């Protein structure tokens, strides 16, 4: 990742994220400049990578998976999302078409996690308060 998180097609832009830990085989990233807002890169530096973002209290905030072209294909978030519930809501965006520019396109599905998805990813959800009746689709 580089200039604001883009792969930049083989260029060597300035890194804007650093690895600050790992959960299993998933890197935990943070902006190199602590004054910057929290976010994950729009494209991965390494093809097929996965990254987690924790908030300033160490609570899970976002997870992204990228494909072989470095594009986002799946995202899980834990934050205010009023359309899905009150307060911080654990939810998933499954991209019908890869890439951040399709994040809110009609082909991308946003919903609560299934129980199967929750079981698959739960090790990443550091500090998340789970109320099964509230958070599962």
């Amino acid at each position: 990742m580089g200039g604001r998180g883009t792969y930049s097609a083989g260029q060597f832009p300035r890194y804007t994220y650093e690895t600050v830990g790992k959960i299993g085989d998933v890197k935990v990233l943070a902006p190199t400049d602590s004054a910057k807002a929290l976010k994950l890169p729009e494209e991965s530096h390494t093809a097929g990578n996965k990254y987690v973002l924790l908030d300033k209290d160490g609570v899970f905030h976002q997870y992204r998976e990228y494909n072989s072209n470095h594009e986002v294909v799946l995202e899980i978030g834990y934050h205010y999302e009023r359309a899905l519930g009150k307060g911080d809501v654990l939810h998933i965006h499954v991209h019908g078409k890869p890439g951040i520019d399709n994040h809110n396109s009609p082909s991308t599905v946003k919903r609560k996690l299934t129980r199967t998805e929750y079981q698959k990813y739960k090790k990443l959800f550091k500090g998340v308060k789970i109320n099964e009746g509230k958070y599962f689709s």
Partner: protein
Amino acid sequence: MKGNTLAEFMDDLLSMDGPEREFLFRDRFFFLESAYQENGSVLELYLDEYDNRNPQDKVFLTTHRFLGQNLSECVGKFENAAIFDGLTIYEAEKEIEVLFG
């Protein structure tokens, strides 16, 4: 603006499909996102506004909606909207802290 530059904030709205963004303005918390309406033909950039005087128990106040045929139209309406205590994003930006996005 803290957390983003104003240019980053505005550019990302157009280039990243209306990215999820959380920010503070005075005693308010905002969650910004875009979404297509159910028929897929109209796009909506929306900001949920919360009373943030007690950050652990934010109270929902209202949703600001900007509709358009594309994101550029939505962002254009957002740019001109005085939704921050009567200020536009350009007038309010010095008091905005972006937390996420």
